[in-house]
């Protein structure tokens, strides 16, 4: 251990929990954004909050960059290591410290898997609402860092809407404890500010999450349309009706083709788009609302509308939807997923322009999106073995992002800026606004050691190299949403 920092790290952790050999570090070089790869100096595997605090304080003392990492599913490269820095992996801090059904809260460590929270709460009739598609593998710590979303954000909000309390170690080594079991708060909303910090403020150690009673009843309809526009019009009609569905999702023809190939999903024939709408609530409310929804869908000229008749059919509809992203991997050796947001009324226009740009660039583009909140996920298909293909795909992705911002939307609905979109931050925020964010970052991290090189445009990026799908993604374990 020649590097002086390694000696100091070795004082904090036993050798089996401090990885330094190249073959050990290889697994941590990349995250869900596989186009980037960077070998860290070391990977630290703490098992307790105190160990995390000690690690961060050491990093502060040595001005050693650190990157917190959960399951490494970030699609924006948020957990990409920093050269010469340490990756602090939090998977072993995976305890649900408290489950309090009476107060409808869970207190969890950052390495707890998203679905574990709902699984633990289910016996009490409760659930944890944020459901990113990678929920079976992604961690709550990562969800907090990137303010993850999912398919139910219009009605239930994103991760930040469900974080009631946070104990965290900031990049200065200060340990803070904000909020708690109450859904209300006195004073500035520190939990709100911390959630979505992209790892630039510090590391969450204990997170108090709000749980909600599981909806008693669901009504899920899958409707196929000849054109994407018709599907978009159906969404507009549902919104205008005053209904508030739990989820509204659209898949285009290419995404449907992928889902059929991957999980043998069955869709109405000759459709350019499929819309999924789901109502949820007490059975009396759902049975009143479903009559209206069924009328609206019937009036929207679908090729066919299929309401799920039972729980099994409902799960099949969602399985097809959730599989769509990794399934696209069957259509193309490589793909990039984007995460822009447009005002909902401009969805049709946005999709038309994505189609045009895709044709101009000669790259196919599949679309899966959260139609209820205007969150697009264009999947740009390319073959990384062809020279220049990745660069063309990146260029197309950039054009799509700029279009989203120009339409009055956002660069990212739920994946975060990370490494991937940092060069586009100035398209959405002025230089003064970015300076304000940098001052905030410096308040939490004056040395710039916490996840440096992310969110802000700058010179610290590693060279763009192509590496293909993440092995777990190829296996269909993680999903890009």
């Amino acid at each position: 251990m020649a590097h002086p920092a390694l000696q100091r790290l070795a004082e904090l952790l036993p050798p089996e929990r401090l990885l330094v050999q190249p073959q050990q570090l290889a697994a941590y070089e990349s995250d869900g954004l596989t186009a980037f790869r960077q070998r860290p100096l070391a990977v630290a595997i703490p098992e307790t909050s105190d160990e995390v605090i000690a690690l961060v304080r050491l990093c502060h003392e040595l001005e050693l960059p650190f990157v917190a990492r959960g399951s490494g599913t970030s699609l924006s490269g948020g957990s990409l290591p920093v050269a010469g820095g340490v990756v602090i992996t939090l998977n072993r801090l995976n305890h649900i410290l408290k489950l309090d059904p009476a107060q409808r809260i869970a207190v969890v460590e950052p390495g707890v898997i998203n679905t574990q929270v709902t699984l633990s709460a289910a016996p009490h009739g409760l659930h944890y609402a944020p459901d990113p598609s990678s929920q079976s593998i992604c961690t709550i710590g990562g969800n907090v860092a990137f303010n993850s979303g999912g398919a139910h954000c219009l009605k239930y909000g994103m991760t930040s809407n469900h974080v009631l309390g946070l104990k965290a170690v900031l990049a200065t080594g200060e340990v803070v404890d904000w909020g708690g079991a109450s859904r209300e708060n006195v004073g500035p909303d520190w939990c709100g500010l911390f959630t979505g910090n992209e790892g630039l403020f510090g590391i969450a150690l204990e997170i108090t999450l709000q749980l909600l009673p599981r909806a008693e009843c669901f009504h899920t309809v899958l409707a196929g349309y000849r054109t994407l526009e018709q599907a978009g019009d159906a969404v507009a009609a549902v919104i205008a009706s005053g209904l508030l569905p739990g989820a509204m999702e659209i898949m285009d023809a290419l995404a449907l083709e992928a889902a059929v190939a991957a999980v043998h999903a069955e869709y109405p024939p000759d459709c350019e788009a499929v819309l999924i709408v789901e109502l949820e609530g007490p059975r009396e409310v759902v049975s009143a609302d479903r009559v209206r929804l069924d009328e609206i869908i019937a009036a929207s000229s679908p090729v066919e509308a299929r309401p799920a008749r039972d729980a099994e059919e409902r799960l099949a509809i969602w399985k097809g939807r959730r599989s769509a992203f990794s399934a696209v991997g069957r259509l193309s050796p490589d793909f990039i997923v984007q995460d822009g947001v447009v005002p909902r009324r401009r969805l049709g226009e946005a999709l038309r322009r994505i189609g045009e740009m895709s044709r101009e660039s000669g790259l196919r583009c599949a679309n899966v999106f959260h139609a209820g909140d205007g969150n697009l996920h264009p999947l740009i298909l390319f073959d990384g073995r062809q020279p220049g293909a990745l660069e063309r795909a990146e260029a197309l992705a950039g054009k799509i992002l700029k279009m989203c911002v120009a339409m009055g939307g956002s660069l990212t609905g739920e994946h975060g800026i990370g490494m991937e979109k940092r060069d586009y931050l100035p398209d959405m925020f002025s230089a003064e606004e970015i300076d304000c964010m940098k001052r905030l970052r410096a308040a939490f991290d004056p040395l710039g050691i916490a996840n440096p090189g992310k969110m802000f445009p700058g010179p610290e990026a590693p060279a763009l190299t192509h590496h293909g799908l993440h092995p777990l993604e190829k296996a269909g374990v993680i999903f890009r949403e």
Partner: protein
Amino acid sequence: MSAALTPASIAELVEAVRSTPQLIAVGAGTKPRLSAVNVTKLSTTALRGLVEYEPSEFTFTALTGTPLREIIAALAERGQYLPFDPMLVDAGATLGGTVVAGLSGPGRFRFGGVRDFILAVQFVDGAGRLLRMGGKVVKNAAGFDLPKFFVGSLGRFGVLTEITFKVFPRPASRLTLKVEANTIEATARILTEAANSRWELDALDLLPDGSSICLRLAGPSAALESLADEILARWPGRKLTEAEADVLWAELREFQWAHTGLPLLKVALAPGDVVAFHQTIAALDGARAHISAGGNVAFVSLAAADQFAALDEKLRALQLSGVTLRGDAPLWSGTRTASKISHAVKAALDSENRFPSLDD
């Protein structure tokens, strides 16, 4: 209270901030303790009106001094509402004041409070820069979530100029039930069971009388009657008429139950604190509390200003925190932890201390 400065445009507001060494923004003054600091007052009341409203997007942007009642009326015309259920609407409270006070009403029980519906802010920082944070769409994860930080920030970090909110379609109908419990323990049990039920209540409050629980249902009218019957089969009580319910919720919204001219506080609670908190209030002669949002927040009206010290001590013992909205009492009560980061963030947004600190 006459404000020394009343800018009539955002440009004038920016100029006023730049040319005033120490100031705090004030809206309609419905929560006067929050800005009772000896610095120049900047009134936002001339900055009013909806800037953008897109019903199909579930979003609007309004100037900070817009009275809530104007927003509520504009949304109602399009069948939409503010799900965080703002307080002090008839009193003339403004949107900006509601945000920096962090004040939500009983309806926050269903979908969340101010923090859960704020999407973007435009504000002037301590250096007089006009900045935007957040995004004007219902889903956004770009940049730090400063809009949420402003909720409850008491105008100490900047002056809001425009605010963007998410809204929802207004439920077709509402039905309020009132049930009674004999003891506070029984009350707490009802709150817990009702909150965890399948009914998806719109509001769940313990009234200032200390024994009546109000449960509000919202949704298609056909469904509400059947849900109400099930609730009333579980606990004795009755359905309120629409007129009765309107009076009841208006009394709570406008703090008509509170002593006039005496301290009124907001206290953040957890449902598990309800019994001990209720006993604390009962021990203060004449003090009243409205426990709202299923036991997640309480509004406390003291019967005498000198009761504050006893309340403060009890809140600390219970590890609860409060903020005084009006009346002659210290701003903060209960537990408060000093953190270095609080000062560092203050310095990042207001390095010249143009706005008071949270300690002032």
